[in-house]
């Protein structure tokens, strides 16, 4: 593989987008106005980039005390990579108990 071929592959990743179904609970439901919605994300997006895009689209997320992202029923750090079959959930500050 030469440098040109490598560039093409990178370009290919960059332009490929995936539709991610996102679930919302608690106040996140009010912010996105629904309990689920679809977001287009670049392939290989991370939890960190999803959070940035959520804040850009819905500025009210920045006003929360905190918010986390769960992927496949577990909390994930910002560097976690999202795939298009994943179950992605917005977790605003919890208040059980």
């Amino acid at each position, binding site marked *: 593989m030469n440098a040109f071929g490598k560039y093409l592959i990178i370009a290919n990743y960059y332009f490929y987008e995936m539709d991610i179904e996102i679930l919302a609970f608690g106040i996140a439901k009010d912010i996105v106005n629904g309990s689920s919605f679809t977001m287009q994300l670049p392939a290989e997006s991370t939890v960190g980039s999803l959070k940035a895009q959520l804040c850009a689209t819905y500025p009210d997320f920045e*006003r929360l005390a905190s918010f986390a992202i769960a992927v496949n029923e577990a909390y994930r750090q910002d560097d976690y990579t999202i795939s298009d079959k994943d179950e992605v959930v917005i977790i605003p500050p*919890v208040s059980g108990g």
Partner: protein
Amino acid sequence: MIDIQLKDVPLSTEECNQLVAFAGAGGTVVFVGTVRDQTKGKKVVRLEFEAYKPMAISEMRKIAEVAKEKWSADKIAIHHRVGVLDIGEIAVIIAVATPHRKAAFEACEYAIDTLKETVPIWKKEIFEDGEVWVAAHP
């Protein structure tokens, strides 16, 4: 014996106590969280609890596993209510039975402290003139 439940019907302290009871128990410690009638002086009419159910259950199970590992608390029941609750109703029960009671106190307190930090359940307080998702804003 780990018993984790999310229920939309009233919770029972007797049931939780009996679930964890075992012949060698030195004691059972039960934490019971009930719905308060006011927040910062403002009258609460009712509460609504909503959960991301599969993950709420798996996070509660994680808490129980840590309690088992750290305090040998292998008899633990965590029951959480969802749906609409009236004032005074029970929102959560955590029951822990251990051979030595000190471990039960520590494991039970760990469990409720952690539940309030990690389990994806949300509480909405309904007032006479509005409603608010508890803890959402700083």
